[in-house]
């Protein structure tokens, strides 16, 4: 047995990071391809998507021999909506056992006693689950490509949908990982993460809708013509839901406007986002024309309007997907930091106590 300790063991943060990332990714990928769970999950996932797609086409074709021009868009809308929803729930479920599973398997202590840093371990676990989600997204691409049979969806929009899927997986996967580190048991982590994800997806739009309806009901129109209008814009927490970003991934859905024909899911998105554009409602009622750029994020004073609108915040000019990306980014960072803090044996108070003892000695 040769002594390679000095030569191979690097000190410092980067070495610890690499010692965690490299073996973790390698092992997780190997494990996922070997077990029975992965093929079963993939089969169920693609099966659900396929059943939805076939069912939709079958229902539409049953109505007549002609193909409605809107059918492609609706088909795409349903597919993307289903894809995002499935990934939203698969991502935390996949990650929720990553750290608690080590505890349950009693490999946790062995892992922590290696040269891998906690950051490396957590990042390795997270990236492994992200890689698996990427695999799931890629696996669904052929199904998405069916949309091209009907036409009407530009590839850029489809790429945007893939981006939203990935962002969803990144954020919610990190949330699942965080709960896995905090809650210790995989079952508890899975349940709590699924409930939280459900609330984030559907709860935030509902809460935002209720808030917006209150604003509308309380009279959003200025008291007199020319009065200053304070527009609340879209509430920030709405962008914790991938549904908000889907408005950018649906053709026409981002261009919120009256009477624009956007099929099915896109219409839902439109209606949802329109709820947060009270100014538009007001102006619509006043039969005023509204420019698309002004509507998006309730930004900018209208050129034709006479009332003065307060300037919105910086984020108001961002596209929805970018705001969703920002929120997912924050979710990822916070979740990973909490996960690292949860698994570290050396809590801040230990360091503080050690320093105190050292200074006292």
């Amino acid at each position, binding site marked *: 047995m040769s002594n*390679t300790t000095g030569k191979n063991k690097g000190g410092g943060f980067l070495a610890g990071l690499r010692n965690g990332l490299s073996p973790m990714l390698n092992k997780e990928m190997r494990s996922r391809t*070997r077990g029975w769970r992965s093929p079963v999950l993939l089969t169920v996932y693609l099966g659900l998507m396929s059943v939805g797609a076939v069912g939709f086409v079958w229902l539409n074709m049953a109505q007549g021999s002609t193909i409605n021009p809107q059918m492609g868009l609706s088909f795409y809308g349903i597919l993307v909506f289903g894809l995002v929803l499935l990934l939203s729930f698969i991502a935390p479920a996949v990650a929720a056992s990553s750290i608690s599973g080590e505890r349950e398997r009693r490999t946790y202590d062995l892992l922590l006693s290696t040269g891998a840093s906690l950051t490396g371990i957590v990042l390795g676990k997270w990236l492994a689950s992200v890689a698996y989600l990427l695999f799931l997204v890629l696996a669904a691409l052929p199904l998405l490509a069916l949309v091209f049979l009907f036409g009407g969806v530009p590839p850029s929009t489809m790429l945007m949908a893939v981006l939203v899927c990935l962002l969803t997986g990144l954020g919610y996967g990190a949330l699942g990982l965080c709960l896995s580190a905090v809650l210790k048991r995989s079952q508890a982590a899975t349940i709590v993460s699924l409930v939280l994800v459900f609330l984030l997806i559907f709860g935030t739009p509902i809460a935002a809708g209720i808030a917006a309806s209150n604003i509308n009901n309380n009279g959003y129109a200025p008291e007199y013509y020319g009065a200053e209008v304070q527009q609340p814009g879209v509430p920030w927490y709405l962008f914790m839901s991938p549904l908000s970003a889907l408005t950018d991934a649906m053709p026409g859905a981002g261009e919120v406007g009256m009477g624009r024909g956007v099929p099915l899911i896109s219409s839902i998105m439109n209606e949802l986002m329109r709820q947060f554009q009270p100014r538009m409602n007001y102006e619509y009622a006043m039969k005023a024309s509204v420019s698309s750029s002004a509507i998006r994020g309730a930004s900018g004073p209208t050129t034709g309007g006479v009332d003065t609108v307060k300037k919105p915040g910086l984020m108001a000019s961002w596209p929805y997907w970018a705001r969703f990306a920002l929120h997912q980014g924050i979710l990822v960072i916070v979740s990973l930091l909490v996960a690292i803090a949860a698994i570290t*044996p050396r809590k801040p108070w230990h360091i503080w106590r*050690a320093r105190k003892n050292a200074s006292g000695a």
Partner: protein
Amino acid sequence: MIKTAGLVKKYGRVAALQGLDLEVPTGAVYGFIGQNGAGKTTTLRILAGLLMPDEGWAELAGRNVVRDPRGVRQVVGYMPDFFGVYDDLRVGEYMLFYASAHGIRGAAAHKLRDDLLELVELGSKREAFVDTLSRGMQQRLCLARSLIHDPAVLLLDEPASGLDPLARVEMREILRELCRMGKTIIISSHILSELADLCTHVGMIREGRLLRQGPLNEMLAGDRVRRFIMRCIGPEEGAAGLIGGWPGAVVSNTGHGQVEFSLTGDAAEAAALLKEIVSVGTQVTHFAQTEQSLEDTFIQLAREVNGA
């Protein structure tokens, strides 16, 4: 090599360690003895950098477990009492995973894997899935894993627990080989007879406090408390009463013309007691000091503590 001072660890209101002071010299095989819940595993987890003490400090090879846990992990190989394996990995992959987690990659990792698997006699199982190994083989694999980064210190928590007699013998042989390699080893175990065969030093812990520690031969030979067995013709009650009344003597067992007792003091004290027993007319056929075992020493110490 290993030193702790005033280690305190509490789990809620339960104090697992209450000011533990250990001292393990370099190259020693230190047997860590104690009952269930005495604080052995907590101590080993603190030494491995997996648990932080509430008070006190611990150093391994000059590295402080609180201030430099990463440094500690570089010099420590830890084998917990209960551990799991990644059942979807092969034995060779399992070893390479931990090698990589210690920063050892490429040809060096492959060589280490092969060498260590040979050391623990699992070379032929390299391609087998870990979960197909027997309990004894998994223990040996875990030991090999803890050696992957060539640590100077090995912390083995009940390494022979759950093993059949043959697997225990195999494990003991491997540990002897590691002793010859100059590793400093702390072994916690309930099977005290096995520790006596293997250890150079012993520490006895009870309720989070160290009762005694030192070189094994000193612990056994230098013990003030000796155990004796006396046999006589006829009833032993009279002799037992006399022994029980002798200063420093404690009768542990009587019956069938036999008295077992412990005596605090040297050989002259034992001779004086024997003379007294004979002088009252007891026909003594056998009077001998029994061989002191680690178990005896531990039990006596525990009784002393209880008596105190």
